[in-house]
């Protein structure tokens, strides 16, 4: 390859301008690819994302997702026509599991997004400001973290009333403190870095320091935590559905399906089994991706 002639091309192409970043990303990808478990996670996540996007078009019995009734086909064991069997009103369980992917992923995305949206700014603020502001934010965070998230979410849903929307509100309200803890300590460490000091001395305003110096350097831990949290939020939302406080039947939600399916154990075992497997594989996928990302961003954690 010839050296780029700067006089002939005064404006370098996108590739050239972003060469360092591209090189960095390729290095990340190279590291990520070497881990078999991280790749397995990526395959799982991509597969479930595809199901969420295309699921309703792919499933054999789309009308079953909303709870059609075919009593003649009720509680059929897995077969060629119904791979995962049918439920108590004759709905195809494969259809409902696949269509439920969209709901579960959307719920997890909202919870993780809201939690990061509340927690990251508060964490940066607490870590950078210090003083009473930091004390206030961190003590409130401590209080929220003093009760297991699921219990607090149950309490909030109990006050608001059961339902998928209230479950999302409750889980979002209990999820942000983790981000505050993470980002506060990261910001505290970054605050003392020379380049932040230099920016401050050069007269950069506080918002500028926060947005263009601190936040970008917090991105990798946020990404790792968000990936893990996608899985944990799916699990939490399904748990609320299982208790009967989340999505209400006949919505095709995995936790709610297991909750009804358990009444049909052991004879009709497929009813509760397959939605559970769906939860397991999605959560596993996001956790493995999170693990892989951590190894990429933080080489010291590798092999742990």
């Amino acid at each position, binding site marked *: 390859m010839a050296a780029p002639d700067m006089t002939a091309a005064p404006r370098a192409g996108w590739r050239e301008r972003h060469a360092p970043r591209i090189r960095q990303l390729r290095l990340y990808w190279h590291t990520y690819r070497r881990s078999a478990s991280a790749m397995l996670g990526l395959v799982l996540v991509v597969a479930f994302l595809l199901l969420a996007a295309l699921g309703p078009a792919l499933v054999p019995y789309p009308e079953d997702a909303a709870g059609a009734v075919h009593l003649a086909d009720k509680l059929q064991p897995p077969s060629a026509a119904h791979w995962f069997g049918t439920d108590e009103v004759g709905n195809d369980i494969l259809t409902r599991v696949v269509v439920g992917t969209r709901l579960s992923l959307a719920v997890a995305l909202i919870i993780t997004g809201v939690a990061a949206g509340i927690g990251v700014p508060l964490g940066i603020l607490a870590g950078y400001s210090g003083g009473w502001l930091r004390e206030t934010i961190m003590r409130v965070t401590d*209080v929220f973290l003093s009760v297991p998230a699921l219990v607090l979410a149950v309490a909030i849903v109990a006050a608001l009333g059961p339902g998928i929307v209230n479950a999302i509100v409750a889980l979002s309200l209990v999820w942000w403190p983790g981000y505050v803890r993470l980002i506060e300590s990261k910001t505290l460490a970054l605050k003392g870095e020379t380049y932040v000091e230099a920016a401050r001395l050069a007269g950069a305003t506080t918002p500028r320091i926060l947005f263009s110096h601190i936040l970008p350097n917090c991105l990798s831990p946020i990404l790792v935590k968000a990936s893990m949290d996608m899985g944990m939020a799916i699990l939490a939302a399904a748990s609320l559905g299982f208790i009967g406080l989340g999505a209400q039947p006949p919505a095709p939600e995995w936790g709610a399906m297991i909750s009804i399916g358990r009444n049909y154990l052991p004879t009709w075992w497929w009813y509760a089994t397959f939605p559970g497997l769906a*939860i397991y594989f999605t959560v596993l996928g996001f956790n493995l991706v999170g693990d892989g990302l951590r190894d990429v961003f933080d080489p010291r954690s590798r092999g742990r």
Partner: protein
Amino acid sequence: MARFVGRRLVFLVAMLLGLLLLTFAISHVAPGDPASLAAGPDATPEMVEQIRQEYGLDRPLPVQLGRYLLGILQGDLGRSVRTNHDVLADLADFFPATFELVTVSILIAVLLGIPLGVLSALGRNGWFDQLARVVSVSGVAIPMFWLGLMLQLLVALDLGWLPLGGRLGLMSTPPEPITHLYLLDSLLQGQWQVFGDAAAHLLLPALALCFPALASIIRVNRAEMIEALGQDYIVTARAHGLGGFRTVCLYALKNAMLPTLAMIGLRFGWMLGGTVLVESVFDWPGIGLYATQSAIAQDFQPIMGVTLLIGISFMLANLLVDLAYVWLDPRTREPA
């Protein structure tokens, strides 16, 4: 040490106050009417009005907060509409079962997790390490309630090895309550049959509950062991001809245990949260089942009671772990 304990106790009280503010916010400030929440779903408007006056819910919020805190200090957690008992009495009835379940579960997680962590660190990247990794990755991803159902399906129904649910079989009478923990009580009174029955009933729910904790204990212990085994003092010990077992257990494990210990405190609290799921699967008569049944019946006060109780237990567990930490690791002690 005394100063440290004192500071931690002050902090604990402050956290407790914060927790009470949080539960107050959930029950009084959240949209929805606290009076009708307290009265339950079947209450007539007159009953709701009566409760509103009785609890002072028509007064300004600061006054309500004062009354709420005073009430809790006097042990008034409200009444359960469903059981028609005081919530405090119900909690006292149900908590021992939960405590027994969580304790046995954390014991299983520790007794399995630490050896598994040590063995995978010793045979790093070998087949055993891979196997342990599968366990630890799956442990976090498996829905606890679903694992419970599958254990019931396979072990209790298909194989018939262990009972399906509950705390004791029909053939056993509960032992005389001394500690209210069936395992301990039956042991103290020498009732071996009851002990066996209680242990058999406990095993499946404890297994379902322990998985996430087991997973993280394996993970943390493995990582810490790998770090400890690479330290100079291990090399020195080996160079002095100390045997493998002694080096590993006496020197490396001792140092690897501290982060694991911190993990155990955290996991204890999460397990208390997990009982909400596992107890309803196994019909285990503890506070988790109490909370879910109340939630379904829209009986509000018991849920707030359970939230407070679990929060307080979690804080105490963390306090104990912190104290143990300082006691075990002199470096964390502050200079006097």
